[in-house]
């Protein structure tokens, strides 16, 4: 479940707008109520909450409830999930539906960016990503990230951006981006759903970057973190990639045996996926055994 802590969100947005509690609460509720809401001690009534959202404005990605907006969010989330899991083929239907909604936001840019990165076209990808950040008001500047509310596709855009930077050789910048993003995710998100998956993707990217930079010890540490997350959350779809990275790191260290071992693991996983596709026999009539 993607969750935002209501109080936390109000507080963040209010602070980012340099608004005091008195200003926000004026005419809506008492200051002490607002403070209780912000600290998670009280759940606001719907009317109160909507008035506050209205006052905080739509500029920060907040909007009072809106059916079309909600549906668009759902489609965006599903699309990002498929992209992370490497199941892009499932997306065409979702994208058609999204296109039919005729929304003018940065999401199509994100889709194009992720496709152009798949085709190794980093220049185009960076240009597209920059336009996404521009719309959100970042301009490559991550210092403001603390107070923003990032949707899954925006988080993934940052990951892609870091990947592009590292491919262009700007490692220190990429590292800064990833670290800022990691801090953001750890502080503000619930890891049960898609944000947990994005976190695993982030750790894996970091590990891959480190091994490309020739820093195998660090890469192994990040791999271990990623594997731990994968294990804890039961989200195994990136396991093979982590094994590949580990093998590369061990190769760089010259530890042949371990390298072979992890290459083998990655191979077995691919093999299994392939073999069960080939082995499809005619189904045994399961029904006759059912009660």
């Amino acid at each position, binding site marked *: 479940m993607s*969750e935002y802590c209501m109080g936390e969100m109000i507080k963040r947005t209010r602070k980012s707008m340099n608004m005091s509690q008195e200003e926000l609460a004026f005419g809506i509720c008492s200051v002490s109520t607002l403070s209780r809401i912000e600290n998670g001690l009280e759940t606001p009534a719907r009317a109160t909450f909507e008035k506050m959202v209205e006052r905080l404005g739509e500029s920060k990605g907040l909007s009072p409830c809106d*059916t079309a907006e909600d549906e668009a969010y759902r489609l965006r989330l599903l699309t990002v999930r498929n992209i992370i899991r490497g199941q892009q083929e499932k997306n065409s239907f979702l994208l058609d539906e999204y296109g039919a909604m005729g929304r003018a936001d940065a999401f199509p840019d994100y889709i194009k960016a992720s496709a152009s990165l798949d085709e190794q076209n980093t220049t185009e990808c960076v240009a597209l990503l920059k336009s996404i950040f521009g719309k959100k008001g970042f301009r490559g500047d991550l210092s403001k990230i603390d107070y923003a509310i990032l949707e899954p596709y925006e988080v993934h855009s940052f990951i892609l951006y870091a990947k592009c930077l590292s491919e262009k050789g700007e490692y220190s910048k990429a590292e800064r981006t990833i670290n800022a993003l990691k801090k953001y995710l750890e502080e503000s998100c619930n890891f*049960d759903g898609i944000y947990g998956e994005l976190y695993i993707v982030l750790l894996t990217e970091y590990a891959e970057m480190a091994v490309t930079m020739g820093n195998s010890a660090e890469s192994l540490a990040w791999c271990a973190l990623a594997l731990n997350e994968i294990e804890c959350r039961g989200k*195994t*779809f990136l396991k093979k990639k982590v094994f590949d990275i580990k093998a590369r790191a061990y190769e760089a260290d010259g530890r042949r045996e371990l390298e072979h071992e992890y290459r083998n693991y990655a191979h077995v996983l691919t093999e299994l996926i392939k073999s069960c596709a080939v082995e499809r026999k005619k189904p045994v009539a399961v029904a006759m055994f059912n009660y």
Partner: protein
Amino acid sequence: MWEVRIGEIIRSQREKLNIRQGKLSEGICTVSTLSKIENGVIFPTRYKLQYLMERLGIDSEQYVILSSKREIEFNEMVRVFNSCLKKDPAVATYMLKRVEKAADSTNDAEYQIYGECSLRLDIAERKKPLENIAREAMELLHDTKANFSLDRLGEDLLSKTEWNILIDYAKVLMLLDRKEEALRVLLGVKGYLSKKHMDAELIRGDYETVLLRIVETLVSMGRFFEADSYSDELLEGFSKNKATANLVEIMINRTTIAINLRKPPEHVKRMIMQTREVIKMDKGSETAERFDDYVRKECGYA
């Protein structure tokens, strides 16, 4: 994009499935609360909302939900409890106490989640008599479903926590050696989960667990032929999702089945090799060697 719209989603799905408000809200909230939620008059608390959506087979992951800090923390505690249950029972015991303290005892849904955690720990530790654990599992279900009975599983609406309790109950039955009963419960849950309106993402992990338990049960009963077809279904899920959480168990069961069904030797050999690698990958080479020993002794394969 906020929570308010979720009321509409709940209403439209409920009307589509032709379910009455009273049936949906049973044990979660009163009918009037449900109708207020549907009309967007109030914010439901997180777990009420989650239970309602799960009973309707909606994956709530797709929606942004605003919740209070306490609920987010409670959720995190439950997650930590579940992840350390296998590794470190002592930590799990400590976490369970924190979960109990954090749970809102007036909220049936939250209290049932705490109950399920405690049930899992009991099963893992096996300090209590198994009969008691089985009885407690059933009582736990009665918290939110006063008239629950196993015979009417097909007509009922279950939330994720509720069907997980049933899966755990089946496990206790297995340990009690009441395999037929366990199999019936598992097949019931499988039937429930494979209903059309269930969101694939919501049931993915649990469906896998249920299938795996069915395979295990059938293997232990010696009904390899049926086990084989269920295990095929499991592996098909693996190739579709490119991953599963219980790969080791799946492969071990598949190997046992292949050996017992006297499949062609080269086929079995390849499977043993694959299983060995998978075990090594997940549990380390020591366990892989134990598997080697097992295969050598039991089946005469080198």
